[in-house]
């Protein structure tokens, strides 16, 4: 045992003598673990909240009962249903106008029947007290923004009425940031009091959606069951978003592992001598292997923990952006606080330790076979690398031709990366060979030949750089292209000056009448919507009043010669790109839509509809209303003389009490959409940047590795009379050359990746294609970044070289045997 401990001690002492090497190992593993586990944390957090949301949405999205003739449901009918075994919970939802004029939705509920399923865990908060919610002075739950709005009313309440309770006291305000703005939630007793509706309810929510018993006879003429649309499968919709993040984090993990590889590789190589000594001392190969593994296990588990903490930190940092984009794209609610299951820590630890051991496999085998890991004389790149690279490229081509799923898209990307990584050393070698061929002097010849010699030991770092650069070019290009397309599309699509949504039909009519009296309003364009299910997919139907605003501005991807006239006159329809791809529909097809009076609809155009996860069908408002009488109306787009927009908005707000979300001018809608867009890609871009920095560190660590081995190669050149200053110059030049070549090769690779992203991944993930665009300025930036990181990485080893004493250089000869 004592001997064994000495072996471990001897092995570990290596790190004490090479602290920089240890640092690169730590950095590599740290960043690999941090990036991987950080993104996994984000994904898990999101999935967790979808699961919770879906169990809650299942209820919100449950069928409910309303009264057939009136808004209110008498409470006795609720009791009658409960006593007949109906799993219903009562609700009272109505808008109230505050003294200051804001309209707010009051929701009264009964938490006791709402929480029917007690098998569930408390998902929300330990601060909720049932007895306080149900007992005087009662509680009002609201969002922080609503609380801010209402606080003055609480500070300075009227003598009676809202917000006083029946006993004249003020209920407690309970602020919760998971709640929507402009909503107050309170107990039914207080809600009934405030609305002055004793023993009245507005909805009865069915707690079990599979409950299909017919209504009791006495209530059949009174109540009506409404089944909601079932479009809330957020997890399915957001899968592609998470797959994107996962792919990026896997890449970061691999780049980090490359650093680990170079550190481990170097450490093992440098311990060849130690190995010989240990063998001589009687340590067996199995023992040595055991202790090397122990050392790696020890190191990796020690580093994994701060790595996980860093991952947690990254996730916490990115979470607001991720949740904002998920909310914007899919309406998914992710709470802004990270709550991670225990499994996250375990899997992160396992990934780090497993990754390290896997990375160390090849160097370990080499060490035990007593093969010097660094080849001194033959710079040749193993042929197997090129062949495998070619095979991977071939497989990628096959996959590109045959695959059609999102997963196959990502596999294609992976194959492109793998083949590029495998082919890079060979390609660089070929390029340098070409330079060598044209070199004039002996020094030049040495320069090229020596550069070729460096490819093999630097290959891992160069591949890391290639990956980081090409990802940056690819993803950056995609995001930038998307931004351009999206902004242009918004410009066109949002042609009307004002958008407004009335609260109900009655208000809609009043508003319409009011608007006709306003000379500055040049066109009132009402629209309607309803939802249908098509092959179990939710489809949104939109009805518009045909007008030049649409025909002049609406961007179409494909159209018949007279699309807009057909929409107006022949009840033709337009569909969005998502739906066209999903259903394989083309211009000229006749569509059969469920629930319509008309048997089929002529498809006259396809339009782009970025950011919408759902399929959409556009038709004239008349067509929509004739076929789907339950169409919701009340939305208007208004054409207004530009300088009259602000006064009009002001008057509208004043006359109709329209809240901020119901009345928007064009600029507000654009701002909102663009803000959402920025946030959507903020996480992607942050991750991208992190990957690039990891690659720079990888390059640095490889150079460190290399510089310590360079002595035997540099010493003879020095002996031939090349000064140390010149040697430093050549070294730098050579390195910059390698970085430059890699960066140049990263451009076509990045373009290929960007092409795959816009034409394959986006289409399969979101249902819309983007034009493939490229941004040469970005490439130049990337080349500069590559050269910069190479320069930074080379600085320390080169300073060392410049300071080498002649004795140290002479040692190079001693070691060279």
């Amino acid at each position, binding site marked *: 045992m004592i001997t064994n401990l000495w072996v471990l001690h001897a092995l570990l002492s290596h790190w004490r003598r090479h602290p920089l090497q240890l640092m690169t190992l730590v950095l590599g593993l740290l960043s690999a673990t941090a990036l991987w586990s950080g993104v996994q944390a984000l994904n898990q957090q999101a999935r967790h909240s979808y699961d919770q949301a879906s169990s809650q949405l299942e209820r919100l999205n449950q069928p409910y009962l309303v009264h057939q003739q009136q808004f209110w449901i008498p409470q006795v009918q609720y*009791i009658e249903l409960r006593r007949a075994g109906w799993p219903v919970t009562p609700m009272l939802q109505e808008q109230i106008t505050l003294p200051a004029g804001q309209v707010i939705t009051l929701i009264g509920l009964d938490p006791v029947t709402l929480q029917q399923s007690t098998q569930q865990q408390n998902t929300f908060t330990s601060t909720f007290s049932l007895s306080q919610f149900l007992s005087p002075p009662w509680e009002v739950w609201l969002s922080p923004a609503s609380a801010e709005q209402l606080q003055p009313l609480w500070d300075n309440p009227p003598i009676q009425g809202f917000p006083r309770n029946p006993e004249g006291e003020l209920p407690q305000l309970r602020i919760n940031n998971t709640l929507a703005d402009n909503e107050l939630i309170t107990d039914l007793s207080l809600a009934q009091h405030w609305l002055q509706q004793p*023993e009245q309810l507005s909805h009865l929510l069915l707690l079990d959606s599979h409950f299909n018993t017919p209504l009791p006879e006495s209530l059949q003429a009174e109540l009506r069951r409404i089944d909601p649309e079932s479009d809330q499968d957020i997890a399915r919709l957001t899968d592609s978003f998470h797959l994107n993040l996962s792919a990026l984090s896997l890449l970061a993990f691999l780049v980090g592992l490359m650093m680990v590889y170079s550190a481990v590789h170097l450490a093992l190589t440098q311990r060849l001598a130690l190995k010989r000594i240990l063998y001589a001392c009687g340590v067996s190969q199995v023992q040595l292997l055991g202790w090397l593994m122990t050392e790696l296990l020890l190191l990796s588990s020690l580093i994994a923990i701060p790595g996980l903490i860093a991952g947690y930190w990254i996730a916490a940092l990115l979470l607001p952006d991720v949740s904002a984009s998920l909310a914007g794209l899919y309406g998914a609610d992710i709470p802004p606080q990270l709550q991670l299951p225990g499994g996250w820590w375990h899997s992160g630890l396992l990934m780090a330790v497993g990754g390290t051991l896997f990375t160390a496999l090849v160097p370990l085998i080499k060490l035990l076979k007593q093969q010097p890991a660094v080849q001194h004389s033959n710079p040749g790149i193993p042929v197997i690398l090129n062949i495998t690279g070619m095979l991977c490229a071939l497989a990628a081509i096959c996959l590109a031709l045959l695959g059609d799923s999102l997963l196959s898209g990502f596999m294609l990307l992976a194959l492109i990366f793998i083949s590029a990584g495998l082919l890079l050393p060979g390609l660089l070698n070929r390029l340098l060979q070409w330079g060598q061929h044209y070199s004039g002097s002996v020094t030049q010849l040495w320069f090229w030949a020596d550069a070729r010699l460096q490819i093999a030991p630097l290959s891992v770092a160069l591949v890391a750089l290639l990956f980081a650069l090409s990802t940056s070019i690819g993803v950056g290009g995609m995001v930038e292209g998307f931004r351009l397309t999206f902004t242009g599309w918004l410009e066109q699509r949002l042609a009307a000056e004002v958008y407004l949504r009335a609260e109900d039909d009655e208000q809609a009519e009043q508003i319409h009448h009011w608007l006709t009296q306003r000379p500055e309003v040049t066109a009132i364009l009402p629209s309607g919507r309803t939802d249908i299910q098509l092959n179990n997919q939710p489809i949104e139907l939109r009805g518009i009043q045909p007008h030049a605003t649409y025909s002049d501005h609406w961007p179409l991807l494909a159209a018949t010669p007279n699309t807009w006239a057909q929409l107006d006159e022949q009840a033709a329809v337009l569909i969005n790109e998502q739906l066209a791809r999903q259903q394989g529909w083309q211009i000229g097809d006749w569509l059969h839509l469920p629930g319509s009076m008309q048997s089929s609809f002529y498809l006259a155009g396809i339009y782009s509809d970025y950011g919408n996860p759902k399929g959409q069908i556009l038709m004239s408002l008349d067509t929509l209303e004739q076929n789907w009488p339950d169409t919701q109306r009340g939305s208007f787009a208004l054409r207004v003389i530009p300088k009259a927009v602000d006064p009009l908005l002001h008057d509208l707000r004043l006359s109709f009490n329209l809240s901020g979300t119901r009345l928007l001018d064009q600029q507000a809608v654009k701002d909102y959409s663009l803000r959402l867009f920025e946030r959507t890609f903020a996480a992607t871009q942050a991750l991208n940047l992190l990957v690039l920095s990891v690659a720079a560190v990888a390059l640095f660590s490889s150079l460190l590795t290399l510089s310590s081995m360079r002595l035997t190669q540099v010493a003879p050149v020095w002996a031939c009379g090349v000064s140390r200053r010149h040697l430093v110059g050549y070294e730098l030049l050579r390195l910059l050359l390698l970085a430059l070549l890699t960066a140049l090769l990263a451009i076509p690779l990045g373009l290929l990746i960007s092409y795959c992203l816009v034409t394959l991944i986006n289409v399969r993930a979101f249902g819309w294609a983007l034009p493939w665009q490229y941004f040469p300025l970005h490439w130049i930036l990337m080349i500069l970044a590559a050269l910069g990181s190479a320069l930074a990485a080379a600085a320390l080893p080169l300073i060392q070289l410049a300071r080498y004493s002649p004795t140290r250089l002479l040692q190079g000869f001693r070691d060279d045997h």
Partner: protein
Amino acid sequence: MIINPHIRNQWLLILPISLLLSGCEADPAPQGFAGLGSAAEGFQTVSPETLIDYPDALGAHPDYRIEWWYITANLEDPQGTPLGIQWTLFRQALTPGPQRDGWANQQLWLGHAAITREHQHLSTETYARGGVGQAGVTQEPFEAWIDHWRLYATREDATEFILELQTPEFGYQLQLQKTGPAVLQGDQGFSIKSAQGQASHYISLPFMHASGEVRIGDKQLEVQGQAWLDREWSSQPLSPDQQGWDWFSLHLDQGDKLMLFRLRHDRGEDYYSGTYIDAEGHPHPLQPQQIHMQPTGQHSVAGRQLPVEWQLSVADWGIHIQTQALNPDAWMQTGIAYWEGPIRFSGSHSGVGYLEMTGY
């Protein structure tokens, strides 16, 4: 289109799954099992002077903090296969004081029900608020209900009842016929629960014949057997350091009955009590030292160890029996979870009964 902000009600997010009986505050101070040891200022307190009689005791006592109507039955199908049912209605007041009307009413109601066979145990629960008619108890004619669960008297003198329950998984409709007198437990219905003086008013109908139909899934079974009804009310039935109990109701084959319980303290001695009821219905309260209750077999259920086999002795009445659970997995998967199921016993006497074990 991206410009349509999703505006959605998120109020369901605020709803916790809380424990009704415990009033659901996470109070660090000990409250006994299910909050039954909570202090009860402002509520009516139990007293040995209170006169309890039947059938008045069936009615509600809203001035007390808590009460329950509790029925167990040991039944058999025509093949003689045993099964047990349990039906309980709990009431708890959140705050003392006069009863408020409508949804403002301070009473909460909770129903628990179960059906147990040798290899099957199904349990369910339901919640309601007082003041609106979803749950409640009326005196004349007697009816206790929550949703469509009902126990009601079919005769004015409360000697015959119907017990009804339907859930998607199981249901039953039983006629219960009182065949012996109502029995006051403890000292004339004043049942002491701890050495510190916590107590409840407690009256039982241990002599009841049950018959009717039981449904499990789609399967209907004709059943008959013996039932036991308990009425108990109090404002603080447990002392704060009592964490649970083991309670037995036993139908001895000779026709006499035995009720025993042990209240387990965090610290110190457990508290024992019980009543031996002879076949004529005369109660003989038992002193703690007369009772010997010893667990003899443990069983792992719902991640806990529970004593599902017991050795019970009341030497003064010549009772030395060994009990066994019909189904050791009779775990109530309810908001407040506990073990409750039919048992059989042998030894000096044999028979059937029910065992309830809480706070494990």
